[in-house]
Structures are given as structure tokens and as C-alpha cells.
């Protein structure tokens, strides 16, 4: 009798585990499921004209170092812009409040992330502040333009140096 009970218990456990795994796969994988939480830190918002495929959970980085995460992405139907809430880790509390935020791409196939470029102000971003200067997601054509512009300016700098 006891073995029958432990057998049914084992089966129940197995079936439960299996369905929990199935549930995880069907609900958490596609779409926005698990949010990787940065508890702590402070929130800053930024408004963009176009955020590309930026998602909650994407990194926020400054000089290439991750300093926080995108907490949420919302649409403001008032001015037709995307409102991105960034959660910055608490130790990075000396970011000038006139810094700019831009949406950039990691590598060739990589996803989008928010890059922060430092400003020159003496006051710092704090919980609830908004980043005024933003640059939208880069479209491939503008990337190519940028490349050529960069190329040309490098060329003229080289001439100057000589």
C-alpha cells in the first residue's frame, strides 16, 4: 500500500514538473515573460521618436559598461513618442543630467541597447528625472551615411595633420 502511494506521489510530482516546464516554455519564452529584475537603483525616463526593437530587459550602458536595464517601454499617445523607463544601478549616481541617450545595436546580429553619453552639467540624474537629449534607433541607411561621413572627416583630419 505504501509503495502504491509513493508511486502515485512520484508520478504526480513528475507530471506536475512536466506541466510546469511546458507552461514555462509556452508562456515565458515567446513575448515578454520573465523580467530580469534589477531591484534597487533609480528610475530615469527618456523619450524617443523611434526605439526600434528595444525591449524591457535590454541593457543600458555608458562607455560600453552596463550601468542598468530598460525597465519598460510605453507609448505616449500625446506626442506619439516612445517613453522608455531606465533603471540605473545605484552606484552610478553621478551621471550629469544633461547626458544624452541613444539607441544602439550590439554587433552584427545583436539586439538594441540604450547608450548614455555624458553631458557637462554639475547636477546629476536622480530618481524620476528625464533625459532630454535622445537619439532614435539607427536605421541602416543612416548608419551607412554616418560611416561615409566619418570616413570623409577622418580623411580631412589626416590631411590637416600632414
Amino acid at each position, binding site marked *: 500500500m505504501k509503495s502504491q502511494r509513493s*508511486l*502515485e506521489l*512520484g*508520478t504526480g*510530482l*513528475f*507530471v506536475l*514538473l*512536466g*506541466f510546469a*516546464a*511546458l507552461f*514555462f*516554455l*509556452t508562456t*515565458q*519564452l*515567446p*513575448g*515578454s*515573460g*520573465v523580467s*530580469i529584475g534589477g531591484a534597487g537603483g533609480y528610475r530615469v525616463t527618456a523619450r524617443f521618436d523611434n526605439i526600434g*526593437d528595444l*525591449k*524591457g*530587459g*535590454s*541593457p543600458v550602458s555608458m562607455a560600453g559598461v*552596463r550601468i542598468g*536595464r*530598460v525597465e519598460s517601454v510605453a507609448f505616449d499617445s500625446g506626442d506619439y513618442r516612445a517613453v522608455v523607463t531606465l533603471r540605473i544601478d545605484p552606484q552610478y549616481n553621478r551621471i550629469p543630467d544633461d547626458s544624452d541617450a541613444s539607441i544602439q545595436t*550590439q*554587433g*552584427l*546580429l*545583436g*539586439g538594441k*541597447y540604450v547608450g548614455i553619453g555624458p553631458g557637462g552639467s554639475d547636477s546629476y540624474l536622480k530618481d524620476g528625472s528625464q533625459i532630454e537629449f535622445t537619439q532614435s534607433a539607427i536605421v541602416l541607411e543612416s548608419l551607412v551615411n554616418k560611416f561615409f561621413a566619418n570616413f570623409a572627416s577622418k580623411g580631412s583630419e589626416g590631411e590637416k595633420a600632414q
Partner: protein
Amino acid sequence: MIAATLQRIGAVVVFLGRVLAQCAPALRRPRSVVHQIYNAGARSLIIIMLCGLFVGMVLGLQGFDLLQRFGSEDALGVAAALGLLKELGPVVTALLFAGRAGTALTSEIGLMRATDQLTAMEMMAVDPLRHVVAPRFLGGVIAMPLLVAVFNVIGLFGAQLIGVQLMGVDTGAFWSQMQSAVELDDVHEGIVKSVCFGIACSLVAVYEGYTAKPTAEGVGLATTRTVVVSSVLTLLLDYILTAAFLGR
């Protein structure tokens, strides 16, 4: 040779029909089915989880090595998730299932055949298909998708362990890219595959056991054949199903 193969395939199909006809009556006695889910599923859980972890970890390493050449190691989550969900999860689980649960089914039924237990049941007008074969078949079919799901989840965490903790891929990028790239259809493809493999592997296992020669050698041969036929059938079905899903 060809005629023998054809006859064999035909016999398996007829056998499948007879087993399926007994499935509904077998389900009316859920206790024996539960017992078989325990045998085929719960007792395979440890090996499935262990292998899932290692497969996921290898995916993490190999995926990282490949993707960093293109500077897109953040896509590791996508690579690991799609690789596990669509191919590695169902196939590796089916191969392990054939080796772990399939052989047990074949030798158990084969030994019943060799010791004339099945004949004794027939003598007492108890249908061995209903009471022996159908519950074992159902247990395997029910256990397989659940095992695959567990394998996939453990594998994902294995990939995350290597990719994020060891190789330094960003956690947020790993999960958020995975979530934006994996469609519900990809999950469904894995589930359909796992159900098909479950039917194929369980059918082969019970058929080989049921038709085993009633000798010690015959049971041994049948057990070997279960592993070989299940593995080949799994990989063949995998190709067909993949082609069907891509062609949609």
C-alpha cells in the same frame, strides 16, 4: 528481404491499430496507466535532467564560440532556445527514452511472453493488449512530451549558466533577445515532435517485446532492436517533421 521488411512494417501498423483500439478501455483503469507513467517518466527524470543540463551547457559554449566571431554573442539565448526547442530537446530525449524506458518495456513484455504469462492471460480470456500493452504504450506517449519540456527548461538554464555566468553574456540580453525571437510556433513544433517521437518509441518498444521470440536470446535481440529501430525512426521522423514545419 524486401517482402519481409514490408510485412514487418504492415505488422507494426496493424499492431498500432489494435493497441489504439485498446487505449480507451485501458484509460478506464487509470491506475495501471499511472504506474506506467511512473516507470517511463518519473524514473527517467534524473537522466533526462542530467543530460539536458550538459546539452545546454555545450550549446552555451559552442554557441558563444560561434556567435562571438560575429560580435553577436548576445544572440546566444536565441540560438540555445531554438536549438533546444526545435531539435535537441525532442531528439535527444527520444534517444534517451529509447535507451532507458524503451528497453525496459521490451524486456518486460518479452519476458512475459517467454514465461508464457501472456499466453496464460489469453487462456483466461484476459486481453494482454488491453491490460499489458496499452497502459505501457499510453504511459510512454504521455511521459515523452513532459520529459522533453523538462529537458528543454533544464537545457536553457544550462546554456544560461555557461553563457551568462562563465562567458559573460548579459543576462538581460540573453533573455530579452530570446523572448523577442522565439515564437509560439517554435514551441509548438517541439511539442508536436515530442508527441510523435513518444508514439514512435513507445510503439516500437511494446511491439518488439510483444513479438519477441520466447527465449532468453530472443528477448535480448528484441531489446537491442528496440534501441536501433527507435533511434533510426526518431531521426527519420525528425527530418520529415522538420521539413513539414519549414514548408508551412
